């Protein structure tokens, strides 16, 4: 458990763990407490949920080869930088 309430920056850092149920119960409660009063972070959480829902419904064969190739190049370049 943290000895302070969570900041917006910490919410951004923790959002993936929250959505994957990887936070301990106290941190999850602090996360939700922040989301409850912070409209910006609530919107961010909603966008992340929507993105996961959308991407999660795309099968590899649904992605055009050109897009796959572009993504692979982008990831390889990203790793080098």
């Amino acid at each position: 458990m943290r000895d302070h309430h969570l900041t917006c920056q910490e919410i951004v850092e923790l959002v993936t763990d929250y959505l994957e149920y990887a936070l301990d119960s106290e941190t999850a409660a602090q996360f939700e407490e922040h989301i409850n009063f912070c409209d910006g972070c609530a919107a961010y959480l909603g966008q992340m949920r929507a993105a996961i829902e959308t991407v999660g419904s795309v099968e590899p064969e649904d992605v055009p080869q050109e897009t796959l190739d572009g993504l692979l190049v982008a990831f390889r370049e990203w790793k080098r930088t």
Partner: protein
Amino acid sequence: MIGYKFLRADGSTVFSGFSWPLPGSEPGPWVEVPVHPCRSGIHACRAGDLSYWVGETLYEIELDGEIVEQRHKVIASRGRLLRRVRAWEDGLRDEFTRMCANRAHEIARAEPVLTALDEDIEPSISDGPAMLGFMAAAIAEERGGMDAYRAERERQAAWLAERLRS
């Protein structure tokens, strides 16, 4: 067990987006979900937890089945909304916001180092009761640490619980 649940104006939850079947003249139907705290289950709060979760609309909820009580919330395997607490929308929500703003002013003005925070309070009124509740507690935290933050939250919850009882 009877608890409370805040929902958005359209009856959906802030965290999962689930749309609750709302009560009319009779309670709403039972909703059943296996209990896994923070993962699934019917999440609600006790009177002492109200200040942490304030939202647009407030309902009384009946909880049944497996019930797990945590520090600021309760999770159950069954729940149904009993009634909409109209008093919340009919003035209590605004009174709570004003009370939190006044309290935030009081704490901020008591310490010269916190007076800069005092200027942020009134412009935040339009952000609603959840933000003002947080601001009052966060300014208390600046003065007295996390214990002061929690004490302010408890004070807010007691204020709300007293008015919901009457």
